[in-house]
């Protein structure tokens, strides 16, 4: 497999992993908030592997545990991010 093909395959694998882990994370979020609000959850194969105080700790641990880079990190929070103007601007295509 050529290098760019391997990169695309890995990227796709990460995207799928993130989506699957996100679904499980959202199911567990209310319980996680009771004791771990503001911390970072490291996930792999739809399971929580560890919970860390900083995103850097979660990322470093994930990279060490999963050499293929297939893992995801979710912050224990349900607060949506506000991007100001960009939160409320419709893409041109969507507005038409």
């Amino acid at each position, binding site marked *: 497999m050529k290098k760019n093909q391997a990169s695309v395959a890995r990227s796709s694998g990460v995207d799928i992993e*993130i989506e699957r882990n*996100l679904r499980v994370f959202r199911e567990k979020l209310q319980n996680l908030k009771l004791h771990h609000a503001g911390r970072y959850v490291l996930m792999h194969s739809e399971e929580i592997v560890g919970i860390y105080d900083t995103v850097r700790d979660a990322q470093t641990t994930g990279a060490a545990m999963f050499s293929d880079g297939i893992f995801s*990190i*979710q912050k224990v929070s349900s607060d949506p*991010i*506000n991007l*100001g103007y960009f939160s409320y601007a419709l893409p041109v295509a969507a507005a038409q």
Partner: protein
Amino acid sequence: MPCLWLQHNKSQIFLNVGIVDANTVVDLVGGNRPDIQNNMFTALLDTGAQVTAISKRAADKLGLRPIGKVPIQGVGGLSYHNNYLFQVAMVIPIGEQNAGKIELAVHIFHKPIEGVELNIAGDQFDVLLGMDIISNCSLAIEGNGTFSLSF
């Protein structure tokens, strides 16, 4: 305190920033310096944005790997966007022009940013520089068309 002194267009503030994969910056300890010149992007400075955002094309160019997803409040309610772990760098001219070259210094904000992927239309800018960076700086916007950003 390093300071950038640039011009604004009286309606928006743009500046060039470097985006560096947070893993690369860790490698600085081993002497592996990121090539900032190839990592520079135009940023829109936006005090209304809680966090910094990056376009998908910039993330792809840098080979950034998403770490997860975060909820963004939008017109149609909540939507989940990819987020990335990176660090923001500023390039500051520090020396006199010498043989056509200006000596530059690179300032990398220490704290990694959990930047959001944003669908930025057009090619005017690739980074929305939000309050996670701006709140670590002193920003002065002058009526004469200039601004200064100290950090």
